[in-house]
């Protein structure tokens, strides 16, 4: 049994207009899991994810990350749970690839020499080092998404949360990001991906959670839930429709 890294009890979140975004969600995630959070648009996936990083705080209920209450340990939580947003363009703060990757460590007031060392290592790992002086706005979609991942990785997170990581990406960009995510999981990171299109990633996942109207409707292994996806407005992967089961998207 793997150690629990995220533990959520009776999480509820209501927006300022009274709309109930998350309704009494309880679940836990173990270290090293690869979780897909699936659901159609407006099902509450993004709202749920933002609670894991402390960007939104629960109206009721409690979230523990590594045993610490998120509401009381925001900085610790954000160091443990890194978040990659849907739109990489608006996530980018630095004016070169290197500066962008260094942003998180500068916020943690890490020494400059350590920052340079860590950023260089992460950029090399993600094959972005040759672009270190480029302006992020001139990168391709896949490179921008990888840079957003680099900006998170320098902070040594144990959990990485992705919100629609493949949206607006072309085929090569999707391959770049997908292989990066798979490698991160293999190197021990816990991965949580929110998406309405599971085709690309489902064969890699160890677990799928289906959300609808702020509720967790299903939670289980991908192969046991694959045939129920379309009843929640999520497209069933082609390989499953053709009777081939779950086939890896990366060949």
């Amino acid at each position, binding site marked *: 049994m793997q150690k629990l890294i995220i533990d959520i009890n009776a999480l509820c979140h209501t927006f300022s207009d009274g709309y109930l975004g998350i309704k009494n969600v309880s679940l836990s995630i173990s270290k090293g899991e690869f979780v897909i959070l699936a659901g159609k648009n407006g099902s509450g996936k993004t709202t749920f994810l*933002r609670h894991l*990083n402390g*960007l939104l705080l629960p109206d009721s209920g409690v979230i523990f990350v590594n045993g610490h209450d998120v509401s009381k340990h925001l*900085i610790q939580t*954000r*160091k443990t749970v*890194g*978040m990659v*947003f849907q*739109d990489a*363009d*608006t*996530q*980018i*703060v*630095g*004016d*070169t690839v290197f*500066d962008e990757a260094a*942003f*998180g*460590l*500068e*916020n*943690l*007031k*890490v*020494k*400059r020499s350590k*920052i340079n060392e860590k950023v260089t290592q992460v950029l090399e790992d993600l094959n972005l080092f040759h672009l270190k*002086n*480029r*302006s992020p*706005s*001139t990168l391709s979609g896949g490179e921008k998404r990888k840079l957003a991942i680099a*900006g*998170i990785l320098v*902070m040594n997170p144990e959990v990485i949360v992705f919100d629609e990581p493949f949206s607006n990406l072309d085929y090569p960009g999707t391959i770049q990001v997908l292989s990066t995510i798979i490698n991160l999981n293999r190197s021990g990171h816990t991965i949580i991906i929110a998406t309405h299109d599971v085709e690309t990633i489902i064969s890699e996942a160890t677990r799928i959670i289906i959300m609808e109207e702020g509720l967790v409707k299903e939670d289980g292994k991908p192969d046991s839930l694959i045939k129920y996806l379309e009843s929640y407005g999520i497209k069933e992967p082609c390989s499953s429709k053709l009777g081939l089961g779950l086939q890896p998207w990366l060949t």
Partner: protein
Amino acid sequence: MAYVTPFTYRQGQSLLHLLDVRCKFFMICLISMSMLSAHLSACFFYFLILLFFFNKAGLNIFATLNSIKYFILLLFFIFIARALTVKGDILFSFYGMSITEQGLNEGILVAFRFFLVMLTGLLFSITTKPSSVKSAVQWFFKPIPFVPEKRVAVMISLSLGFMPVILKQAKEISDAQKARCSDLQKNPVKRITRLVLPLLKKTFLSADSLVLAMESRCYNDDRTDPEFLPSGKEIPFLIGSFIISLSLACL
């Protein structure tokens, strides 16, 4: 791909690219102030120096002038306004308005001074990374009490970094409207309103996303201090700029 403005930083290894940003700031302030009292011959002398540095920085002066053609049009209006409003020996009159010799001379001088200040600023922004500008602002504001220098520096850096994103969004909105025959609308006020309102909405939404992205990476005011990398040529450049400023003021 990002929208590149005439002021966008371009990578390079010229002397100006490598010069410490604090030195560049000091030089630009000194020269711009002495420009206020410079005569035409001094302006011409400084223009030649600027041409030399444009060349050294690997920039094509004609392409640069083309990219600031609307500013040059504005200078033309300043010139006309001066020529028409300054009293003196009348050269010729029409419809009750007269152009004077003194007005013509002053118009040329004022327009030329503005033009040189503009070119100096352009050379500075093309050869200086926005992150270095941020670092310099932070350094200059540090001794001033009650000024949150780190916050001011981040605000400046974000404004500079967000310009290409905003321009790209404006272009997208404009193209989307043109695709629906917005060109047929001849009223410029209506055309601008239709462009500005969705642009503002998009900009505010992007700013919201940026705030979340910064917060998720533990943004706070107490950050690692910026790093300055002097090239070792700062003293000769400072002496040179002092001599140029004296020449501009006295010639």
